[in-house]
């Protein structure tokens, strides 16, 4: 192949935009320095005015949806944010944060490290978009019938947790209790819509088979009911879990490396 002709490398001369465009944020320059912003608008609203008159939850919603939420939407989002504020010290992402903390990793790295691990397909952010699409696509189908169909098609040789559909399954061999409790509260919220209703019915239909909501499915249903696009789901889930991840990481940052277990040699088995 060494003698064959190659295409001479040349630019495609694609029409790239001259400026980066955004619909989100508008910075107005100060009078004497075009690099310094003196006023910032978020989807048209003055940031200073938002600070004075709106809650963090409302501005958070505005940032991603482009409009302020009504009171019911803000209430549902706030409750979800509390529900997701900490994946807990056993979640792999939190454990990554704790390892970074106790390992004396620079504190600026703790959150990026944890959020990378929070991007996983198992109980992590990578589940959210598929779960949102799954729920949105199936709200017209009978949840009990679909659950029955999935259970029937389930392979017998699954090792570990079962994810029977994106956002649903079991956890550590049983029904995950916390998302079940949280779902009961969220579904009573006026802004909970057809995705939460459908998801709850689907989860309950799985209960006889020792499965139900995953936390990821619950987050996906609420995000969908609040009108967030599926592609936003992963990042939103990471954002909402960030406070707990960082809290656990920084808690260990000033402690000695002995503050977390180091598996003893007799419990480390090399199987090659």
């Amino acid at each position, binding site marked *: 192949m060494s003698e064959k002709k190659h295409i001479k490398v040349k630019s495609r001369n694609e029409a790239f935009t001259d400026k980066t*465009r955004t619909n989100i944020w508008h910075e107005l320059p100060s009078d004497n320095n075009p690099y310094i912003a003196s006023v910032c608008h978020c989807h048209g609203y003055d940031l200073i005015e938002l600070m004075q008159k709106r809650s963090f939850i409302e501005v958070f919603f505005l940032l991603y949806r482009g409009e*302020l939420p009504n009171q019911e939407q803000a209430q549902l989002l706030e409750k979800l944010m509390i529900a997701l504020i900490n994946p807990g010290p056993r979640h792999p992402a939190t454990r990554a944060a704790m390892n970074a903390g106790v390992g004396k990793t620079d504190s600026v790295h703790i959150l990026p490290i944890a959020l990378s691990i929070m991007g996983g397909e198992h109980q992590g952010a990578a589940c959210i978009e598929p779960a949102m699409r799954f729920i949105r696509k199936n709200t017209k189908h009978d949840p009990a019938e679909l659950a029955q169909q999935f259970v029937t098609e389930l392979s017998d040789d699954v090792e570990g947790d079962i994810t029977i559909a994106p956002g649903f399954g079991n956890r550590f061999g049983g029904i995950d209790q916390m998302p079940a409790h949280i779902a009961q509260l969220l579904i009573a919220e006026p802004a909970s819509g057809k995705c939460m209703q459908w998801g709850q019915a689907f989860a309950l239909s799985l209960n006889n088979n*020792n499965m139900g909501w995953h936390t990821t499915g619950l987050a996906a249903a609420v995000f969908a009911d609040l009108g967030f696009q599926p592609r936003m789901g992963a990042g939103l889930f990471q954002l909402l879990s960030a406070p707990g991840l960082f809290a656990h990481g920084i808690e260990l940052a000033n402690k000695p490396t002995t503050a977390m277990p180091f*598996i003893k040699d007799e419990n480390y088995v090399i199987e090659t």
Partner: protein
Amino acid sequence: MSSKPEADDTSLWDENRNIIRSHKGGWVMGEAVYNHGYNMMDELVGHKSYMQIVILNATGRLVSKQLADWVEAVHICLSWPDPRIWCNHIGALGGTARCSIVAATVAGVIAADSRAYGSKPLIEGVGFIQRAHKELIQGTSVEDIVSTECARHGGKPYIMGYARPIAKGDERIPAMERVTKNLGFEVGPHLTLAGEIEEVLMRDFDEGMNINGYVSAFLSDQGLSAVEIYHMFITTVTSGVTACYVDAASKPAESFLALRCDDIDYQGKPHRSLPD
């Protein structure tokens, strides 16, 4: 539907509490560090190249130095110090923002875990050429392989491993052909097919092979799978990102591709007052 079990089966997790079982190796203090059955200090350090160990850790295979050198050459091909490339741009932004060089470089590496460029498209590239080779063996012509694949993309030559963004042609292919020849590798059936596919695409679309296509075909000839190849190239852009970081970090903060407020084109809602 079956009925709910009386108790949750947690045996899998019970068996994995307070114990780590490794198929890779580990440190036996006072004895040795083992890596896939090798004593690292006695058998690997000073005897094998760094890239051989990278591939060993990624795939479990201790490949020849010849193959590891070939893989190393690909890493050079994919680490350009040009901050216009997306992953490198992130490295430069890290430099201008005075991030740690590790954070900026890793951020660039993560960016290259992209559907459009970097290492992830190797999965699709290898998948294509291995599938095409099976079809060829079964009697499908190269012309039909190309037309079927193009038909999946509205008749356009969007085949992973061919064409490329920004530019036509790929200067890395002749470089890697030279490396392949100098290291004494034969051109195998996947690489031969890749070249034949390229000939059809050049004739019909004026599009050629890109580095993904070359790497996918060559390493398929070495008996590696798509996932193994992806795992071998996860940090392939690292060095270029670092270079761009260092360049930007050596200049005043936030001076890399400086933006005035009006350099951003706001196209959103007009300014408005908050509702009561």
